[in-house]
């Protein structure tokens, strides 16, 4: 090589026309797609996990001799999966808008809407899951001891179910935060930043 690296650098850039500045108005396009894709992947993964559990529960129930409780949990899980699938399908109908900002905003609206609907459903489903769990524990205990359900125990279970019903929205939100918290925060931050970017 004839020239020193300093010369190559200096002369190379002296008449360089390739220093074309990339466009920055597409700043968030790929970011948005990536973010939404990540959330969609997680939602699908969650769906698969629910389906796997729906298959496993009756099998476990069979071996634990609580087949009906296993089937009941499975039916509940399948209903949850069906509802979640419907929610995920709605993403496709979202308004993609003119910009990635519009898309993220409509995605955020869909998310909030889906969450508020799910909270209402969780009120009943969580209580039912709790009753199934109690029934499973009761059946197992009954099998071993042959005891009968006392009125006091019945009252305690009923009160505990009411407590679960009352706190189900918080439990559900905690559950969702645990699974999707990071992506949700990222989505909020991205939208906030895009709004700020627009304002300058």
């Amino acid at each position, binding site marked *: *090589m004839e*020239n020193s*690296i*300093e010369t*190559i*650098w200096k*002369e*190379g*850039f002296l*008449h*360089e*026309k*390739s*220093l074309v*500045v*990339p*466009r*920055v108005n*597409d*700043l968030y396009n*790929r970011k948005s797609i990536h973010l939404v894709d990540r959330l969609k992947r997680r939602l699908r993964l969650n769906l698969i996990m629910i389906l796997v559990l729906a298959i496993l529960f009756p099998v476990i129930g069979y071996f634990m001799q609580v087949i009906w409780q296993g089937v009941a949990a499975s039916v509940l899980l399948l209903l949850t999966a069906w509802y979640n699938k419907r929610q995920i399908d709605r993403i496709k109908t979202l308004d993609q808008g003119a910009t990635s900002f519009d898309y993220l905003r409509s995605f955020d609206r869909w998310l909030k809407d889906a969450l508020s609907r799910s909270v209402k459903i969780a009120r009943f489903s969580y209580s039912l899951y709790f009753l199934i769990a109690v029934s499973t524990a009761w059946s197992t205990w009954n099998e071993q001891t042959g005891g009968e359900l006392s009125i006091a125990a019945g009252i305690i279970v009923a009160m505990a179910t009411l407590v679960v019903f009352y706190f189900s929205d918080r439990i559900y939100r905690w559950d969702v935060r645990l699974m999707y918290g990071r992506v949700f925060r990222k989505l909020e931050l991205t939208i906030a*930043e895009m709004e700020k*970017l627009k*304002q*300058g």
Partner: protein
Amino acid sequence: MSNDFYRISILPFAAIIIKICRAYTTSQEDFEDYYQEVCLQIWRSKDNFREQCSWSTWVYRIALNVCLTLVKKRKSKGHTYFSSDGLPDVVTIENRAFADEQLNQLYTAIRHLSEVDRALILLYLEEKSYGEIAEILGTNANNIGVRVNRIKERLKKIINGEFN
């Protein structure tokens, strides 16, 4: 980001950002991603600029930090730019991003260096003093001269070995 901020505070330093981003990427797509990320980071951190250094030093520092972070992130996600023999996996048109062929060769050689050595040599080639280089990279200025000489030797070897 307002057009004014971009036009006044970033555009005059676009060449710096482009030169740095090119050294850490091998495709046009990645290059544009890195460039945009650097611009965004400059905008994000504009309020932290305390005028203890010049704006261009600030831009260099941010551009290098962003590139190093992105390279690290991609590595952890399993993206590799180079095959086991240290050469780019695919010699794409993007490896010839500049009209000057010798400049393309120099860039290809620079991409063979470690991330920190790349930063160091870029700053040296941009005629930053050892003190400024140390300030931007947050290291001691004492051994920068020795390191620069070693890197230059290595670059010569790479270029001669590959292209002559």
